[in-house]
């Protein structure tokens, strides 16, 4: 049996173990900022804009935590905010062309390296083309899943049901299978 005193000290320990907003956000910022930056880039934002957006996301996270908002999965929360922010920024830059990442050319370009990497590059290029062939929503599903979000979390970002996420991912995976097998 746990004495009251022991459970009390456990409670205090548990409270101490939970990081405060500043610590939590700083840690997550170190871990996840590059991921968020890349996610923002896939919307066609210019690198400077994508980096600004990624930084902004963490400030908003800090603000929400400080306001006492209960955020179950801060990483998923960040992707949701980054998603919405990127959409907004992309809408604003409407008249300009989206920033061209030119990934295909970069992947196709044979750089110096062992022969095995040429084959690997070939496979990456096929995967890239398969992903480019997906619909925007399917692509978002896949990217967010790659970033570790669970189905309900992806559903919340995209404003669709979790079963729709399952269906989108199934299609994406089917394409990836073909691309990586060929």
């Amino acid at each position, binding site marked *: 049996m746990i004495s009251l005193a022991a459970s009390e000290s456990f409670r205090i320990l548990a409270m101490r173990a939970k990081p405060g907003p500043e610590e939590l956000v700083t840690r997550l910022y170190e871990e996840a900022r590059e991921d968020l930056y890349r996610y923002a880039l896939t919307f066609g934002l210019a690198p400077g804009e994508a980096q600004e957006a990624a930084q902004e996301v963490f*400030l908003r996270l800090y603000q929400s935590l400080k306001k006492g908002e209960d955020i179950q999965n801060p990483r998923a929360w960040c992707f949701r905010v980054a998603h919405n922010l990127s959409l907004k920024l992309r809408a604003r830059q409407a008249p300009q062309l989206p920033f061209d990442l030119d990934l295909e050319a970069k992947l196709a370009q044979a750089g110096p390296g062992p022969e095995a990497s040429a084959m690997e590059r070939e496979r990456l290029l096929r995967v890239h083309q398969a992903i480019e062939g997906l619909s925007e929503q399917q692509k978002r599903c896949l990217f967010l899943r790659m970033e570790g979000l669970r189905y309900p979390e992806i559903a919340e970002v995209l404003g669709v049901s979790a079963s729709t996420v399952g269906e989108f991912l199934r299609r994406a995976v089917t394409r990836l299978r073909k691309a990586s097998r060929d």
Partner: protein
Amino acid sequence: MIKEPRPHPDHEWLLLFSDGELPPEARPAMQKHLEACWECRHELQQIEEAIGAAVRYRKEALGQHLPPPPAPWRDLSSGFAQIDQELTPPSLLSRFAAALRMPRYAIPLAAAAALGAVVFVARNNVNVPTGAEPAPAVATPVQPTAVSTEQPIAPAKTVEQTPPRVAAAETPQATPAELTHSAIRVAQLLHEHGADLGEPIELSRAEGRVVVRAYGLDSERRAELEPLLKQIPFVDFQTSNGNAPAVSTTVARFAGVSGVSPFQKQLEQGLGGQAAVDTLAGESLDHAETMMLRAHALRRLAEEFSADTLSDEDQRALRTLRHNHAQALSAEVARLERTLAPALRSLGTAPALLATTTAAPNEANVFAAARRLESSIAELTGAKPVTGAADQLPSRLATDLASTGMLARSLAARD
């Protein structure tokens, strides 16, 4: 015994299984099927391989071939600090300081007195002869109006004076009725724009003109009001280019204030802790300030227009203005009653149910009552030293609440 052949799960279910998204009740059956079925195990393996391809793509294609962030990552700590600052409610200390500052409603008159001169004078209905030099400007010193505040104002040390741009040209003279009508329209306009509640804008009449004086108005507000005011005949809109004089009395006055209620212990006990007392103090000071703004606006209307003979139209307009203020004032006192009720209860004072004032329901009396109430609140919350017997303070406060409430309701009902 022959078992029914199990149907193979479709790809989506396999992916769900592999992603751990399958409903818990479906998992054991899937597990069993996979153990038995080579085909599905092979399918599952292919799904895993596709996932592997996606992971490699993320790492190698996105991770290595996307442009790197163009700038070094910012240190967020200054952003955190800014957010902290934005989220921190004003401390009770600064709230007390605010309560002790010159009341907002007294600023226009005080500013006039301290500035001594109005700097920009823009007149409408003025014909400036084109091509001619503007007539030499005369800065008209503003007579310090009888300042009705109880607190002295530190004179502004430096007043930037810009040569006034007055064109002393022929100005059409208004009849008294026209002038009154213009003044009422100005009052209406200021009311519609919320400029009659503590903003440093003052309406007066002098020498056949309606004079609207504004002190340190920001340019946006000025741009909003000026064109509208200029449409009303016989109106001069005067703005100073400086800020309303800073009132430097706060700190000195604040030094003598404890910030702690004379009934702190009882209140903490009754309300459930210091935080609750702080909240009560903050809220009641807020309501008291709003109440005073309304009381002052009412009094100003009475002072400005009581001697006028008003047309029916003007009468109606004035009534509406008075009614709005009186009703808002009455609502604010009701809020104060609700806010302060728990405090009064914990001090063993019942709210004074019977009206305890015999004062006539007019603007001067409601202003005086509101002023007494504000003072009692400041004393109870420790924002001001107690005057008179401290043990009488709760019942005094209850009485002030009741009489201000009664007067405000009578005024609201009048119009």
